[in-house]
């Protein structure tokens, strides 16, 4: 069929590109807001910054209706099983943004209770640094994620299947092991 026979209101594209275009422009975030970054996330959604311009304003509190997890805030060890469970409950295709220093690395909260970066335990697609990130920064992150989806997305989500390796740091860093050993040595000298 020659190009000239096609009416103006018909577009030619690939199925992958069409699906990715649709997905990228209708991200439904799951606001996993556990701390101060959550306030900034709410500000991003409000009228001054207006996340709706990027089609991502429909925050859903049911993981079944979301495809973008935004982890905003520190995640403590009691919350991590909840986070993982919510992540597993979200339908494919799904993405994850780790927002703020705490979600990315634990931030200043290097204590026994705070998970040192959610990327150790769930797959993260995009990191937004800052403490807290400005709404503009989060939007820049969402736009970058949209680009990523548009450029690498496939209709069946086959690109996810290849990511079989955990992408974050290993749960036990070397320095963590050393610290644990030092702590135990201190303990022995005390008793």
């Amino acid at each position, binding site marked *: 069929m020659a190009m000239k026979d096609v009416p103006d209101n018909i577009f030619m594209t690939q199925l992958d590109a069409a699906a990715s275009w649709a997905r990228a422009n209708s991200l439904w975030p799951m606001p996993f807001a556990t701390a101060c970054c959550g306030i900034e996330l709410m500000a991003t959604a409000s009228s001054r910054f207006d996340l709706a311009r990027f089609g991502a304003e429909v925050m859903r509190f049911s993981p079944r209706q979301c495809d973008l997890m935004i982890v905003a805030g520190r995640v403590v060890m009691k919350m991590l099983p909840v986070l993982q469970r919510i992540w597993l409950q979200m339908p494919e295709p799904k993405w994850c943004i780790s927002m703020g220093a705490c979600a990315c690395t634990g931030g200043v909260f290097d204590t026994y209770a705070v998970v040192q970066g959610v990327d150790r335990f769930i797959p993260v697609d995009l990191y937004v640094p800052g403490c807290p990130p400005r709404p503009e920064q989060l939007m820049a992150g969402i736009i970058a994620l949209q680009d990523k989806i548009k450029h690498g997305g496939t209709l069946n989500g086959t690109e*996810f299947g290849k990511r079989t390796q955990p992408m974050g740091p290993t749960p036990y860093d070397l320095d963590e092991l050393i610290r644990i050993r030092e702590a135990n040595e201190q303990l022995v000298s005390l008793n």
Partner: protein
Amino acid sequence: MSTEETLQSKFPAAGLKCSQFRDNRRVVVPAESLQPLLAFMKGDLGFDFLAEITAVDYLEYEGATDRFGVVYVVVNTKTGERLVIKTFVNDPDPVLPSAYSLWKSADWLEREVYDMFGIKFSGHPDLRRILTPDEFSAYPLRKDYPLKGRGERHNFPVITRADS
């Protein structure tokens, strides 16, 4: 007669030590006399509100003779009087009588002290951990517990993108 004097005359054998810093009034009481003293304060002196229970770990503290100090703050809501009551317990088995029968607010406060310091309260109706997960085995606010933990924060399954 001030509350401290009343307590002294009511419990002459207990060896109460009263002190004051600014308007912070403190009574140090041996653990054996804690329960009758608290009952007396609730029943006769009208201290009807238990504002706080917390604990202090004196491990390696200069001049300290006991391991744990447990601190009760009681308030008389009619007169606004506020008193800090402190007692000491020791390893290996720190146990105190529960104040739950006097003030219901002791329920969660005692659970918190148990969770953070491992001090048990005998007679408490439901002494479980309150802040940390149930399977947590350490007492994190003890001084011999490292700030960064013993690796509990890393003890989770790793989910990769392919299996989620």
